[in-house]
Structures are given as C-alpha cells and as structure tokens.
C-alpha cells in the first residue's frame, strides 16, 4: 500500500479563516464576541489621547503668554480627569481581553485536539494504513503550535491595528483633510512595501519549511543507518551529503530571516519619512496660513499639528505590527487547513444493528440478561418487530469473496473458507498473498459487498462493528503495549476484569512467571511500548491481554514470527492453551506453527491454491510440500 509521505507544504485553502472563526465562536459563543468588543474598545480608546493632547496644547497656547497656571489649572485638570476615565476603561478592557484570550487560545487548542483525537479514533484502519504516523503526529505538534501563535498573538494584533488605524483616520479627518491626504499617500506606499516584503518573507518561509523537511528526512535516514555507516566507513561520504543539504537549508533560512528582520526598519523609517512630510506640509500650511478643511472646522494650528504628528507615528507603528504577523498567519492558516482536513476525514461507517448480549437459557430458549453469564448471544431485531437470539459459537464462513483495497487491483479472488467452532485454520503464503487481508475483512477493518462473510450464520455487515470485534481476539506480530502497569495492560482486554482474572489470564498465557520476577510484579510500570521487556515477554503479555478478553474467535497474525525458535517454544505453550476450544485463524511463516491446524490454506496472489491438513498437503506434493522442504522463498 502506498503511504502518502509528503505533507502538503504551502498556502491554506480559501475558507479556512472563516471556518476557524466559526470554530472558535462555536467553542466560545459568549467569550469570543465579548473579546472582540473589548479589543475594539481598548484599541479605540488608546487612539483617543491624540484629541486630549490637542485640547491641552490649545490650553497651553492660550495661557502660556500670561504664565498664569491657576487660570489654566482647572481647564487642564478637567481634561485630564476625562482622559483618566478613558484610560481606566482601556485598562479594564485590556486586562479582561488579555485574560480571555489566554483562556480562549488554550481552550480552543484543547478542544481542537480533543476533536482531532476523537475523530481519529473513529477513522477506519485504512486511514492509518495509508498515512505516515509521523505525519499524523505533526497535526498534534506542529500544526497545533502554529495555531497557538496565530490565535493568541496575530488575531488580537490585527484587530487592534485595524481599529486603531480606522480611529486615527477619523480623528485625522476631524482635524485636517490636507494633512490626512499626505498620510494616505504615505500609507499606500507602506502598504505596497509591506505587501512586497511581507509576501517575499512568507514565500521564503514556506521554502525554508520545505528545506527543513528535506534535511529532516535525510537526517532521519542517516541516523537510522548510523551503524551501517560505521561498518562501511562511509562517514566522510555522508558528511559531504549532509553539507550539501545543510548549505541549502542555510541559504533558505537566511533569506527568510533577512526578509522578516529588515521589514521592521523599513516600515519604521518609511514612517519617519512620512513624519517629515507631514511636518513639512504642516509647516508650509501654517506659515502660509492656508485655509484648513476639516470635519471639526478647526483652523490649522500648532495644537493640531503636534498631535497629528504623533498620530502619524502611531499609524505607521500599527502597520508595522501587522507586517510582523504575516509569517505567523501564513503558517497558522496552513496548520488550520491541515487540521480541518483531518477533521473532515470520513469516519468509519457502521450500519450494523445486530448486537452481542449476555444470555441465559430458559426452557431451552435463549433469553437476554444483564448479568455476565459467560453465555453470549447475537440479538437480531428483524424488520417485522420480532427479535431473535442466536448463540455465539464462533462459526465463520467466507463465500467466494473478492476484494480490492483501491477498487483497481484485486487482492483476493474467490476465497471461500469455512471455519467451524473450535477449528484452527491456518493461512500460508508469501507477503502480499492476501493472508492479512482476509483477517482484515473478518473483523471489518475493511468492508466487502453484502452477505459473503457470515458469523454464526449472520451477515457480518449487519453486526455492529464494536460487537463483532469484541467477539474476535487479535494477536499481532508487532506488539503494542501502553504506558501504564503490567496489570493495566492485561486489563486492556476487558476493562471490568478483576485483578484475579488478569492474573489467571497471565497464567494461562504463561506470562505469570516472568511478571512475578519483574521489580514490582504486576504493578511494574511499562513505558515506551514495554521497552524494558524482551520481545518474547511482550508477546506473552499481548497473549494474556487477548486471554482476558476471552473471545470465541482468535486471529493470530504472525504472532511468533519475530521470536527465535527457542523462545517460541515457551510462547507457543501459552498460545496453545489460549487456542483450546476457540475458532482460530493463524497466519505464520513458520510452518511448525501451523502444522497442527485442522485446515491449512496456501495462498498465492490472492487465491487459495491448496487446502487441507498438513498430512494431506504433504502427500499432494504441491506448493506446500515445496515450502516445507525449503525449495521456495516466502517473499
């Protein structure tokens, strides 16, 4: 199966931004609009001082000739008092929105994380078979992290800047049209510079990401093969390769960083130039006493010019702030885009309605019960309102099954299997012959067209997936244990199992002995997929885990393949004990493992080419015989 290795690097699709806002709003229907309002208030209020400055300078102009402070005092103080009120409003709203932003940012990330994780649990196995685990992980790390910056910093900053610019603009118009025009010309210039440099910066940023990805891939491969490099004295050659890739990354990184570094000084100094022009035009207008055009109707005076100059600076500063956020926004949106795509993945569908229930026998009839009786039944509601109960026995039948993963290449042709309760059915064949595919169909990791697989006579498509899988135990070649105690790992098979049940299962699997020798026995903490245990021990735990679940049907997919023959002998005892009385499907390379099966199926290119007991197949002198005598390679 092809895995999609490349994560999409690049710009986000359209519609990502509105969707992100909608998502945040959905999470925080009160807090989000409230925060927006508070940011608007805070930004608007912080632009207002310009007016007060104009007022106070006007007062100063009025009184400074006389030098009479007592006369001016009242006027100044009353203005300042109002200003302080504004400031208090600004501080309160600033404090509140900052706190709310912190809560909302973390909350949104958490909720997204939970949605992603929940959604992921419901995705079909196909998704995990076709996507790199590293890529899946990077949704939770890189993409979530890029969102954090954007939500907590860039969004409030953008809103603040936008509001400030609008407010300043109206105040400017209020004072003087001519000077405002000068500012507008300057702003248009700044806008283009920001767009050009900011765009360049974003472009280089994306290229830098690609270069980082390339280097990471290379390093990953080399670190993985480090011992081979040593054995072949290939160090110098790999250093040379590395230098080439490293140099390329350096060049991209330098361009990207240079762009974002020089954006600040450029915006800043364009602001300075603008300042000079405003001062110049203001000076000219003042000197020639040109008539002013403004909303306020104020004449152009020094009390207008000074705050105007301040506003010009503030204006430029805000545009500079916006330009700083461009990279974060580009990255954040790309991250949001990928996260949404994960959330949009189609979950596993399940139209099953037949459920597995505890049952007891009354007058020869199966009756549903809440108590755990050890007797299970399929509860099958019918269209006419009646419900029938079928005893769970473990009878699995495949009738002429064809299957294709991608709709193009058929991997199973006309496969028919009849496994009666308690029988052991083995699959033998090369990698890619379709052995695992058959088990994937039985537990409905992949679905086929109706009615061709029956479990206790019921079409498995009618059985609820959860109940179907609960009735099937699985032991795989790659053992996955979870961080937690040994006991917790065994209990994973049945969450309500008592300690005694888990220990019993461990004894059955032959794991009890080594567990008691662990430092803390059953309470020994495992981490890193049971890194402190040997391969054989881990496999024994996975057998115990399956044993505690006590399913009527077991699937063992290469369960002993990565264990050496001596250890296998020990594990085999546990497996034999577990298999007793169950329907078992075994996939194995080692013919010793499958030899005592009731039926052995030899698969080749998705077809069953031989079937029968070991003795029968040996006598036939076909493919199985050749495998058995070592004339063929199972690859």
């Amino acid at each position, binding site marked *: 199966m092809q895995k999609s290795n490349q994560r999409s690097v690049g710009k986000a699709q359209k519609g990502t931004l509105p969707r992100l806002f909608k998502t945040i709003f959905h999470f925080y229907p009160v807090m989000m609009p409230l925060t927006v309002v508070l940011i608007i208030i805070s930004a608007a209020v912080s632009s207002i001082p310009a007016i007060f400055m104009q007022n106070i300078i006007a007062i100063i102009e009025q009184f400074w000739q006389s030098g009479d402070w007592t006369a001016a005092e009242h006027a100044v103080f009353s203005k300042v008092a109002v200003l302080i009120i504004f400031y208090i409003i600004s501080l309160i709203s600033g404090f509140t929105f900052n706190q709310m932003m912190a809560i909302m940012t973390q909350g949104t990330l958490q909720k997204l994380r939970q949605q992603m994780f929940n959604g992921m649990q419901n995705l079909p196995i196909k998704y995990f078979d076709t996507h790199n685990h590293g890529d899946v992980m990077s949704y939770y790390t890189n993409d979530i992290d890029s969102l954090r910056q954007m939500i907590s910093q860039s969004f409030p900053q953008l809103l603040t800047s936008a509001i400030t610019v609008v407010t300043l603009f109206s105040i400017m118009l209020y004072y003087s049209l001519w000077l405002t025009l000068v500012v507008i010309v300057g702003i248009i210039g700044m806008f283009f510079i920001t767009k050009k440099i900011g765009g360049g910066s974003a472009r280089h940023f994306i290229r830098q990401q690609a270069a980082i990805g390339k*280097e990471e891939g290379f390093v990953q491969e080399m670190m993985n093969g480090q011992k081979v490099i040593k*054995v072949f004295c290939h160090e110098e050659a790999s250093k040379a390769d590395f230098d080439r890739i490293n140099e390329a990354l350096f060049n991209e990184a330098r361009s990207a960083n240079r762009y974002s570094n020089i954006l600040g000084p450029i915006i800043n100094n364009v602001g300075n130039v603008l300042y000079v022009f405003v001062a110049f035009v203001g000076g000219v207008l003042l000197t020639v006493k040109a008539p002013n055009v403004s909303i306020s109707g104020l004449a152009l005076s020094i009390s207008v010019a*000074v705050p105007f100059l301040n506003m010009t600076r503030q204006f430029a500063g805000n545009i500079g702030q916006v330009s700083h956020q461009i990279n974060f926004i580009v990255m954040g949106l790309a991250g949001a885009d990928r996260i949404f795509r994960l959330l949009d993945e189609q979950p596993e569908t399940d139209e099953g309605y037949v459920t597995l229930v505890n049952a007891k026998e009354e007058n020869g009839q199966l009756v549903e019960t809440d108590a755990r009786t050890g007797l299970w039944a399929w509860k099958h509601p019918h269209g006419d309102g009646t419900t029938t109960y079928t005893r769970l026995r473990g009878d699995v039948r495949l009738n002429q099954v064809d299957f294709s993963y991608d709709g193009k290449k058929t991997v199973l042709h006309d496969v028919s299997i009849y496994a009666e309760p308690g029988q052991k059915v083995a699959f033998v064949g090369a990698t890619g012959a379709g052995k695992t595919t058959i088990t994937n169909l039985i537990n409905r990791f992949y679905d086929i067209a109706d009615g061709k697989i029956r479990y206790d006579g019921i079409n498995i498509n009618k059985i609820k997936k959860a109940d179907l899988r609960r009735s099937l135990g699985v032991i795989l070649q790659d053992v996955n244990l979870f961080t937690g105690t040994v006991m917790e790992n065994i209990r994973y098979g049945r969450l309500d199992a008592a300690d005694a049940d888990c220990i019993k299962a461990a004894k059955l699997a032959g794991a009890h002995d080594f567990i008691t020798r662990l430092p803390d026995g059953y309470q020994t903490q495992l981490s890193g997929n049971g890194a402190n245990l040997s391969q054989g021990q881990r496999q024994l735990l996975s057998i115990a885990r399956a044993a505690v679940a006590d399913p009527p049907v077991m699937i063992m997919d290469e369960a002993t393949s990565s264990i050496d*023959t001596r250890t296998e002998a020990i594990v085999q005892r546990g497996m034999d004990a577990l298999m007793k009385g169950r329907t078992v499907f075994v996939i194995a390379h080692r013919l010793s493992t499958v030899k005592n099966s009731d039926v052995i199926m030899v698969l080749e290119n998705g077809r069953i080419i031989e079937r029968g007991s070991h003795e029968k197949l040996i006598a036939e002198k076909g493919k199985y015989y050749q495998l058995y005598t*070592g004339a063929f390679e199972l690859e």
Partner: protein
Amino acid sequence: MLKVLMKSIREYKKPSLQAPIFVSLEVVLECIIPFITADLVNQIKAGCGLSVIIRDGLLLLLMAALSLTFGVIAGTTCATASCGFAKNLRKDMFYSIQNFSFENIDKFSTSSLVTRLTTDVTNVQMAYMTIIRLAIRCPLMLIFAFAMAFIMGGKMATIFLILVPLLGISLFLIIRKVMPMFKRVFKKYDRLNNSIEENVSAMRVVKSFVREDYEKEKFGDAASDVQRDFTRAERILALNGPLMQFCLYAVMVFVLTFGSYTIITSRGADLDVGQFSALLNYSFMILSSLMMVSMVFVMITMAEESAKRITEVLTEQSSLANPEHPVYKIADGSVDFDNVSFKYSAKAEKPALSDVNLHIRSGETIGIIGGTGSSKSTLIQLISRLYDATEGTVRVGGRDVREYDLETLRNQVAVVLQKNVLFSGTIKENLRWGNPDATDEELIAACRLACADEFIEKFPEKYDTYIEQGGTNVSGGQKQRLCIARAILKKPKILILDDSTSAVDTKTDALIRKGMREYIPETTKIIIAQRVASVESADRIIVMDNGKINAVGTHAELLENNEIYREVYQSQNKAGDGDAEK
C-alpha cells in the same frame, strides 16, 4: 555549555559582531530622531520660516535614510549570523555523530538525534538571533532614551525613575513565577504527545479491542490537565500587556498635567510643546525595551533545554579512538579471543560476554547458534572493534584489534549487520558503499555470489533501480542479499553474517554458502543463524548461551554431545528443516 556552543560560530563571528554594532547605530539614530522632531515642532510653533522646516526636514530624512541603511544591514548580518551559527551547529553535531562508536550510538535514540538536529537547533538559532539583536538593542535603547528624556524633559524624566523599576520588578516577578510553570507543563505536553503517538501506532489494537471510547476518555483527562496548566501560566503572562499600558498611560497623564504646568509657569523656557510628543516617544521606547528584555530572558530560558541537548551531542566523546601509531596491514583472517569479557556499560550487573576463549584459523567457516540474548551479535561485534572488549584481548591476524587503523580493520572485517538498512539511491549506489571504485563487472560478480543477480535482472531498470528510503520497495530476502553483496564487494579477509539470510529461503541460502566456499575460500566466514541448516556445513559451530560459549564442534559432534544444539535441531526438524521464515 556556552563555550562548547560558541565554538560553532566560527566564520560567522564577523556578522555576529557586526550585527550588534549596526543595531547600536540604528538605536542611536532612532533616539535622536524624536529630538529633532521636537525641535522642528517647536520651530513651527514659534512661527519659523520654511527654510528652517526644510533644513530640519532634510536632516530628518538623512537620518531616516541612515537608520534604514543600518537597520537593513543589521537585519541582514543578523540573519546571516544566526542561520550560519545554526548551520555550523548542525554540521558539528552531524560530524560528531559520524565519529560516534556503537556504544555512543546506543546511548541516543534515532528520534532524539533527529530532534536535536532540527527543533533544538532552531530554538537555539532563534535565541541567538534574539541575543545579538535585542540583547544589545534593549539596554542601549533604555539608556539612550533615558538620557534623551532627561536632556529634553529635565525634571519631567523623573517619572521614569519610578516607572522603570516598577515595571522591571513586576516583569521580573511575572517571569520568575511563570517560567517554572512552563517548564513543568512542557514536560506534560511531551508526555501527552507521546501518548498520542502510542495510540496512533497501536490503532489496530485499539480497534480490535473496541477501546476507542476508553482512549478518548484517557486522552481527554490528560489533555485537559495540560490545558489547565497552560492556561494558568498564560494568564499570568497576559498581565504583561495591561501592565505596559498602565505605565504608558501614567507617563501620558503625568506629561500632560505636570508638563503643561511647567510650560505655562516657565513660559516655554523649561519645556515646550515640541518636547511633549518627544517625551511620549521616549517613554514608549524605554518601556518597550524593558518588555523586550523580559522577552529575551524568556527566550533564552526556553532555549536552554535545547542548548543542553545539543551540547550533549557535541561533547560526547567517541569511546573508540584510533591508536597513535596505527597498523595499516592485516596479515590474515585469523581471529583470537583470549579471556574476553564484555559489558555494555560499566554499570551493567551482568557481563554480556564472559571468559570467551576462541581461536579461528584464517579461511575457516564458523557457525554461531544460540537463543536471543545469548550475545551472539556481541561476540562478533568485538572483531571489527565496533565495541572494545572490557577484559581480555581480541586479535585479528595475530595483532590486538586496538593496534589497527579503524578504517583498515573495518574494511578487512566486513560485517553484515542483523538490523541492516539500504539507503535511498540506486542499487549500484548502494552496492558501491562496499567499494566506491568497483567496476560494473565487480558489482555483478558480487551480486551473483549473493544470489542477488537473479532478482535484480528482473527489475526493469536492473542495477539502476531506485531503492526507496528504508528499502521499502524490495522484499526482506532481497534486501538481505543486497546487503551481503555490498559487504562482499569490500573483498574482506573476514566476512561476518549476523543472521543475514533469515528471510532467504533455504535453497538460496545454501547456494550463497556454496558460492562463498568456492569463490572466496581464503576469506574467514563467520555465520550467525537461527536455522541449524545455515550452519550445519560449517567447519566448526559455536553454541552460545547466556554470554558464554557453551560448546564448539562440528554438526555431528554437537548433535551427539550438546543438549542445546540438539534441542534447537529437533525443534526445527520436527517441522522439516525448511522453516519458511521471513
């Protein structure tokens, strides 16, 4: 730690020094500009002529141009310096890793090395850029703006004497409170991500046991815990903004009241309206540089962990060194173990090998058999000095392996590792790892010997077939045969196969052994195998058990006298000698 890291600056010392210089110049100009604008405003107010405006205006434009130039140069050199530093760090780490011995390699996991080379370097790069840019800029700006404010505002500037310590102490307290919180929560966050990874790779198990809801709940608990801690820390950090606002507002109110008082009472002598906005400008500069200082501090602390991890790699000393007067010639392919014991680490309780005495003649074929954990691989790794024996001596060609030049030794003692890898590239490129100068004929000959020729010829592009990363487009058995061919190309005196034909069918396995017997008879061959059939025909077979040599002998002798050997033989023979193993 700093000393180690600084060594990697090298050719980027110049831009690293230039950057702060240009940043300083930029700061000086930035601080002077408001001074001139203040003058300009005062001039305009005083009703000066256009000529003065033009003069001051031109002066300002000149300064803006200079400031821009300095800023651009500073930004560029800064980018060069920090990215260059990062490049050198990566390079030094990679080179250091290339010199790692097996023992060093065992110490670090692949993923941790990858993180160190990528994320950690990026963190340090960011911190470095912040340091050379802001660490100079902020204090300088603080002092300059402060001085200018005093020159300009006189008594007015005393407000800063109150506000700066106030803001400084508050920021300090916030950071001191928040940093440990962040460190803790980042650890939790790592654990959370690890558990996600665990879940993703165990998805088949999760689904088979129908544990989706259980996993969701487990994740939910852990994730809300992380969220709670993050929110707590972030909320404290969010006090920064309003705090800064408060200080700015305080300055504004102060300037407007006390300022107008001063102007009016002194009739513009002590202070004038032009200074009004300049003072506000300076206050913004002073306070924001304080803010930045706190940010620099945060960044450096954040990068500290990364720097530590990088230093670990840089200072890791290879546990194997070339001797001072290395021997470049290996006499023959004989191997001797004299009283050899080996521990993987000094702390290990049990030695991996103890009291091994073994003498292998040049040209002999030796089989090694034993269960997992019996130290078969450990034994052979001492021969090419992948590890050094803890006690006793290992000799090749009659000399202690520690006397040879490492490269000479490893080229003459070719090991086909158990966990072997092919690299992305064509088959030819992969094979030439064994011998970069091998001709095509030599490649084909080696592949014939390793029985790889037959399947390579079936590929449409034959020897130019591209091998994907990790060798995913060839089967296990094909991979093993390519790895054998790659080792044969070295034309070694000793060839060691560590379970290298486990995925190859018995027939081909036998053919490979036959080929080696016929075409490279002088080469000493040491074969580790799970299958008795693979070692049956060896001159001698060594049975390993628990780090000790349990028995040495021929197949017939061992079958007769050795219980372990017999047990293994029987368990395999019950199933026919043809385990169709992977």
